[in-house]
Structure formats: structure tokens, C-alpha cells
């Protein structure tokens, strides 16, 4: 029997019980829709993380103080005080894979403007920092090299600080008090958002020249960190090795001894974040996949009912010359038609609910064509898999028994 005739017969059989077919399809619709929407959510999250990481500066490395072992007592990360300004200079000059580097130190302080005050993070650095982190000013300018040299009392404020201290007021040229010292605001940074790795608000920060911070705010001569940009994305690992070798040499660490610093490569962080969002996507997709399987069981159930109901019809078909394969194919195609129609409707449902999720929850949802294709193939597969047993049962019927069936 040709495929077109079988399809017509299948459509007629399904339309005989419209409500039943629709409800059975609903299982597949929900399954396929859930797979598409969940994969969309997962991939959207993954893309968001990727974007955030590349916004952080994709070629970036982060050198910080390491752990130290003092007579068997191991302290946490960032406890050593061996990272100094000259280390930064040496990295720029001696590591060929490094393009730029900026020193960094930090403290927290109460910042006051007029009647408002705000507790925030104060970072000391040099102007190239903003370049390395690809973080442009929204208004005004960064402090300059000469500000650093002269330890000037100037500040660049993050978007969160601006909002909390100034509200609608113009911050440029105003004077804020950081730990009671007056600083002139020269620039306002653009919004950076939450950090991908830690989830903290990167805009809740004030930047001042490193020299100002060290001399007037903390009194610490050492650095808390050095941010480094590699010459290219591929060079980050080379830069990591060069910096490690260089700093071990400068800090006179003997072979076999632990580093007193830590070099983190943002490519590693990106990979980690990517991996975790991949796991999330898989998790969501497999939960949605379970609902697709449940939908498949619904198809199997209804096909079994259908075979029993149509036993006599099967007997007639066999008597007039249908082979076992003919009968089996007929019921199998019926199941596949059911699941494919459910799959097609499920695509609309999935894409629609993805749009609703992204609108209502503000999540980035990425509906990939691959997920749609996979969902359709999978739903056809569900039809074949769960339709096979009922179809086999129909084909195995004894025509004499089937004809006698009431």
C-alpha cells in the first residue's frame, strides 16, 4: 500500500476520535514544547555568561596574592604581601605575551556626598586598567598618569555609586568624601553589571589613583592584584606561564615550593562558566525529555486501546489481503502521525513559551534551530518506539479470531 493511502487512513482513524487524539497529542506537545523552551533557557543563560565574560575583557589575566605556609599554618588566598608595583612593571616589560598590566589595591570605605552616604569598595589603580577591562567612561574622563604620579585626589565612580550618591544630580566636578578625604569626581563609568564568576555588582565601586589609595587611604605599600591583558586570546595561557615563571623568579621561590601568588586566566573562568551552563542545559533538557517520554507512553496507551477497538477492522483487512507488515505499518504510521503532529504543535508551544519566559522573567532565551530539529526527530522517534508494540500486537492477531471479535 502506498504511503499516501496509509497516511489518509491514519488521518481518518485519528479524526474518528478527535478529543482522544488531541489529548494524546497534548502529551507530546508539552514534551516537545518543554524541551525547546528549556534548551532555549539553558542556551540563553550560556550566551549571557559568555557575553559577560567577553565584556570583562576576554584576554584578561588576574594576578593576586597567594597563600602562604608559615610553619605549617596555611593561610587563605590573598594573604601574602609580596606582590609589589615593580612586579607589575616587570610583567609588562619582560613577558612577551603580555600587552598591558595595571596594578590594583583596594579597601572599603564610607563615601559621603552632601546628605547622602554610601558604603562601597574603593579600588586604586592606573588609567590603563579601564582599557584592559574594556570598560569605557559614560561621562567625563579617567584620571591620568600625572594624577597617579602626584597622588591626586580624583575619583572615577561606578554606576551604582552614582545612583546612590547623586541620584539625578550631575556628579562630574562634584566633591565626595572618602573616609573624610575630599575627592573630585572626574569620570563616571558605564554599567558593567554583575560579574559572571562571582555574581557581585561590579558597578558598586570607586576608582582612585593607586598612589592616592596606598598613601592616603590604606597605607599598604603592597598590591592586592595586578590585572593583565595578553596580546591575544590564544596568548593567555602563554602569558600565564610567563608571569608565573617571572614572579617565582622575582619572589625567589625555590623549585618545589608553593607560589606565593595566584595567576587566574579568565579563559579558565569562561570555560568553567560555560561548563556549568552546559550542565544546566542538559539538566533542563533531560527533565523536559522525561515529559516527552510520558507523552510517548500516552501514545502507546491510546494505540493499544485503538487496536482492541478495531480488532474486527484488522480481521477484515487481513481477510481481504493485508499482510502482517501492512497492518503493522498502518498502526505504526498512525502513531508516528500522532506524535509528529504533536511535535509540530509543540514547536509553536515551545517557541511561544520561550518568548513568554524571556518577556516575563527578562531571561535571555535562545531558541536554536537545532533544538527544533532534534525535537521533531525525537518526537517521530517516540512515535515509532511507543507505536511499535501496539502495531506488532495488531499485526499478530489471528484473522479468524479478529473477525469473530465483538
Amino acid at each position, binding site marked *: *500500500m502506498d504511503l499516501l493511502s496509509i497516511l489518509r487512513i491514519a488521518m*481518518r482513524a485519528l479524526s474518528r476520535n478527535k478529543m482522544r487524539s488531541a489529548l494524546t497529542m497534548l502529551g507530546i506537545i508539552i514534551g516537545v514544547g518543554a524541551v525547546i523552551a528549556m534548551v532555549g533557557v539553558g542556551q540563553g543563560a550560556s550566551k549571557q555568561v559568555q557575553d559577560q565574560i567577553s565584556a570583562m575583557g576576554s584576554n584578561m589575566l588576574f594576578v593576586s596574592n597567594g597563600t602562604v605556609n608559615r610553619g605549617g599554618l596555611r593561610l587563605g588566598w590573598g594573604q601574602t604581601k609580596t606582590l609589589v608595583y615593580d612586579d607589575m612593571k616587570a610583567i609588562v616589560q619582560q613577558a612577551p605575551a603580555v600587552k598591558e598590566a595595571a596594578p590594583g589595591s583596594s579597601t572599603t570605605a564610607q563615601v559621603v556626598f552632601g546628605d547622602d552616604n554610601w558604603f562601597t569598595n574603593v579600588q586604586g589603580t592606573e588609567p590603563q586598567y579601564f582599557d584592559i577591562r574594556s570598560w569605557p567612561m559614560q561621562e567625563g574622563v579617567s584620571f591620568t598618569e600625572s594624577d597617579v604620579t602626584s597622588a591626586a585626589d580624583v575619583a572615577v565612580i561606578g554606576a551604582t555609586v552614582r545612583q546612590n550618591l547623586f541620584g539625578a544630580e550631575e556628579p562630574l566636578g562634584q566633591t565626595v568624601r572618602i573616609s573624610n578625604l575630599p575627592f573630585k569626581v572626574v569620570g563616571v563609568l558605564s554599567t558593567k553589571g554583575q560579574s559572571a564568576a562571582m555574581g557581585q555588582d561590579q558597578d558598586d565601586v570607586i576608582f582612585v589613583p593607586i598612589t592616592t589609595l596606598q598613601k592616603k587611604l590604606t597605607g599598604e605599600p603592597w598590591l592586592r592584584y595586578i590585572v593583565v591583558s595578553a596580546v591575544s586570546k590564544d596568548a593567555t595561557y602563554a602569558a600565564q606561564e610567563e608571569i608565573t615563571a617571572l614572579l617565582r623568579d622575582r619572589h625567589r621561590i625555590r623549585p618545589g615550593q608553593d607560589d606565593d601568588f595566584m595567576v587566574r586566566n579568565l579563559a579558565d573562568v569562561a570555560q568553567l562558566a560555560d561548563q556549568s551552563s552546559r550542565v544546566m542545559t542538559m539538566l533542563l533538557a533531560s527533565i523536559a525529555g522525561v515529559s516527552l517520554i510520558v507523552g510517548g507512553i500516552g501514545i502507546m496507551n491510546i494505540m493499544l486501546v485503538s487496536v482492541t477497538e478495531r480488532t474486527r477492522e484488522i480481521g477484515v483487512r487481513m481477510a481481504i489481503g493485508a499482510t502482517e507488515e501492512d497492518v503493522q505499518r498502518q498502526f505504526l504510521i498512525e502513531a508516528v502521525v500522532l506524535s509528529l503532529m504533536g511535535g509540530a504543535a509543540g514547536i509553536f508551544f515551545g517557541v511561544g513559551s520561550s518568548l513568554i519566559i524571556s518577556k516575563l522573567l527578562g531571561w535571555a532565551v535562545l531558541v536554536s534551530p537545532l533544538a527544533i530539529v532534534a525535537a521533531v526527530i525525537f518526537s517521530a522517534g517516540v512515535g515509532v518506539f511507543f507505536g511499535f508494540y501496539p502495531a506488532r500486537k495488531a499485526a499478530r492477531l489471528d484473522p479468524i479470531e479478529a473477525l469473530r471479535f465483538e
Partner: protein
Amino acid sequence: MAAITHSELIEQAGLGELSRPVIRVEDVHKYYDLGESKVHALRGVSVEIAGGEFVAIMGASGSGKSTFMNLLGCLDKPSSGRYLLDGTDVSQRDKKALAAIRNRKLGFVFQGFNLLSRTTALENVELPTLYARLPKQERLQRAQEALQLVGLADRMEHFPSQLSGGQQQRVAIARALVNRPSILLADEPTGNLDSRTSVEIMQIFQTLNEGGLTIVLVTHEPDIARFAKRTIVFRDGKIRRDEPVKERPRAAELLKTMPTVED
């Protein structure tokens, strides 16, 4: 050989078929194994039915006539013995081969019509040609011809629920004929019909038989059996009587004397 024309060959073949039995059953036994008890449904049946015959098979229930019909219809295989259909032994063929034989050589008519509901008369009749994998154009043409033959040319697009019992049975006969079988097998075809409609169905059978079709009919009504040319009576799994019908009535003439529905 060269002197014989094509048409002569066909004629010879046709004559040959008439002289040769279409159905030849040799010492057939059939057992059913029902767990503890064994049922011996057919106990050595031998019969020959020639091309163009019209045979009525009679017998009480449990006499073995249904089992015999299932064997003739290639729906079942004999436990022992041989069944030759058109000269070839079909008693031990596999299921797929039997399905093909049922499709091409046999036509079935059942007591309960067994039409597919929500399927038009034309599509019901077309069904066997689908399984014969005939081209679409020929399928349609054959189905229309078959319906014309049973006088339902004006009911092709009707659904079974829109047809009377007699009309439904005529659709079933058209379905049985659409693949041009050698034998028409009818199992109590008038069992669900009133007496006038039953005679109408027998009239169709007689007309088809006059056209050369071999018909085997199972019935328990002697009034119906007498329209056939030969009756075979089964009892206890064996043939008890096998005789030609005397004073066979013509269904067409009998119909004229019968009251119509309007009367």
C-alpha cells in the same frame, strides 16, 4: 505451435480451467488444541469444486463447516491433508503468501458485512486493490466497475451508515469482486437480511455465477441453499451429503412474485 494465434491460446486456457477443479481438498483433518481437550473439527474431508460451480455448504453449528470455510479462505491451515487452489498446493504456505492468495484469488463476503465505517462505499471497495498495490487510476476504475456490477453506481460516496443492510452487503460483494478473484466465499451472507433482500443478494450471486464465477456459500437456511447448483452437508467434521440441487429457482423470477417493501 506457430499456427496457434494469441486468442486461441487464451481460449484453450479458459477451457482448460473449466475442466480442472478450482478447489481440490484431499483428506483434510483439523485439530484444535484447547489445552486439556483436543477438538477434532475436520475428520478427513475430500472434495473437488470445479470452475463455475455454485456450492452451498450446510450443517449445524459445530459440524465443521466454518472450519472448512476458514481453510478454503486460506485464513487457516489444515493439520493434515492437502488443499489445492487453482492447481497449486496452498496448505503449507506461510502467512504472507496466504495473504497474497486471499487478496488476489479469493473474495470474502461476511454475515455482518464488515464494512469500514466512516469510509465511503467506493473507498471500502477500493481497499483490496490498495493491498494488491495497483496503480491509483486502475484502483478507482475497478472499484467503480465493481459497484456498478452490484447496482450501486449511484451510492458510491455514501457511508455504510447511510445504506440499508442489503445495500451494505452489495458493497461487500463489490469489495470481494474488485480484485477479480477465482472464487467468491460467502459466510452466511443473508444471515442479517430479511427474506426479500436475501433473495436479491442470491440474484446477484446467480448472475455472477452465470458469468463464470465460482461461488462457495455457507448457510444454514435451506431456502437460501436451493439457489446454489450443489449442496454439501457437514456433520461431525465429515461430509454427509453432496448432491446437485433439483428444481433450482431463479432468484430474479422469484423476486417478481414477492411483495416489495411498499406493499
